[in-house]
């Protein structure tokens, strides 16, 4: 039951994480989010090459009972989508920060990372009853 909050990623209030790798970003949803949702059974991914604004809708993650919009924590152009999620969406449950990544993008504005939370700040955010 204990949740992971890796320190090499930054977190959004809406429970996405982003890992900055030079000019690129990898994005997924947090361990807390996957656990809240339960068994994930469908992921709708954006088109390759799409330009996405910060906080724009990136895709949709559905569990058996819930539908959750994934918002992009940063802006950029989609360079890769996790094709594995089409057939095995449950890898988000199993490995939210590694195998269960959702998209990779070319970062539009590196300064946007300052709007995000560190692992400690995010844990505090959850403990304060993050429901939005």
């Amino acid at each position: 039951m204990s949740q992971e909050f890796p320190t090499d990623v930054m977190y959004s209030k809406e429970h996405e994480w982003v890992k900055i790798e030079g000019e690129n970003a990898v994005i997924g949803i947090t361990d807390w989010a996957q656990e809240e949702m339960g068994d994930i059974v469908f992921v709708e991914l954006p088109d390759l090459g799409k330009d996405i604004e910060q906080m724009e809708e990136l895709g949709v993650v559905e569990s058996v009972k819930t539908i959750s919009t994934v918002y992009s924590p940063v802006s950029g152009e989609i360079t890769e989508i996790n094709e594995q999620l089409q057939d095995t969406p449950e890898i988000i449950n199993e490995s939210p920060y590694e195998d269960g990544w959702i998209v990779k993008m070319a970062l539009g504005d590196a300064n946007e990372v300052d709007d995000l939370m560190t692992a400690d700040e995010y844990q505090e955010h959850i403990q304060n009853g993050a429901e939005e």
Partner: protein
Amino acid sequence: MKQTPLFEEHKKLNARMVPFAGWMMPVLYSGITREHNAVREHAGVFDVGHMGVLEIRNSDFGMRNDQNAECGIGNWEDKILSRKISDMQAGRIRYNRILNENRFIIDDILVYAFENKTMWVVNAVNMDNVKKILTDKNIPFRESNLKAVALQGPDSDKIMSSLADVSEIKYYRFIETELLGEKVIISRTGYTGEDGFEIYTPNPVPVWDVLLQKGAVPCGLGARDTLRIEAGMPLYGHEISQSITEEDSKKLIGIEMLDRAIPREDYTVFFSGVKSGYVTSGTYSPTLKKAIAMAYIDMVNVGDTVEVEIRDQRHPARVVKLPFYKRTIR
């Protein structure tokens, strides 16, 4: 919010609790898919203590074959039920629906027939409406103190047999017996498409505990919903409601998605490019490993391809017969 007698047990099991029809109920314990599969493969146990249980004396209901019904009430079964109950033998159960004057559906219920009375098991969400109708029509009723616990799945027979003699209970029949020192009703009924029992007891906690000890997996409303969708069973407020007539409800049909997108309640269905219907309940089916839904769609036949609009995109689906899942009798 009301609590069933099993509320504390759910908390002990770290269930996720949600409000449902005025009750705080467990939606899941270990995970919907795990609970769903437990019922399909072994056994699961559900708290069904939110369901309303009413008792009506036959003489008060003016049964057709009731010699005593001479007080001018007369044949209520013809006026408010979709199926008659006066021909039922004691020990039998019949699925039934309460209808209004225009045959719109007020509730779907199970009617248990006893020698002198019937017991009606009513949806929690409709309990007040049903009581009001009975009161308006001057049909006296008594609210039972019995609470239901459901044991469902292929291992149910083995588990139940170790606690009581249930060998004589056929599908949709019940017995009155003693279980753990309490007088209870045990019926072979359920809402999952599997073999199983529903136990009506004044004291559900020891029943719940012993079923868990015997290996039944606690299951919440989430799995209850995915199981009943696979079994093609309607849920009040979704497939049937006060805005659907008994006759229209017979047109309910199944669809299986041809891709992985999940049809959800109220999504629009297109047939031959024309808006032709809507989804009433949809889910990813853990048993069939594809997305399925029940729907009302005009003019379609089994085998037709339709499209479901999901977030502004149309996804193909095939019209199929209900149920999606039928257990193999062992």
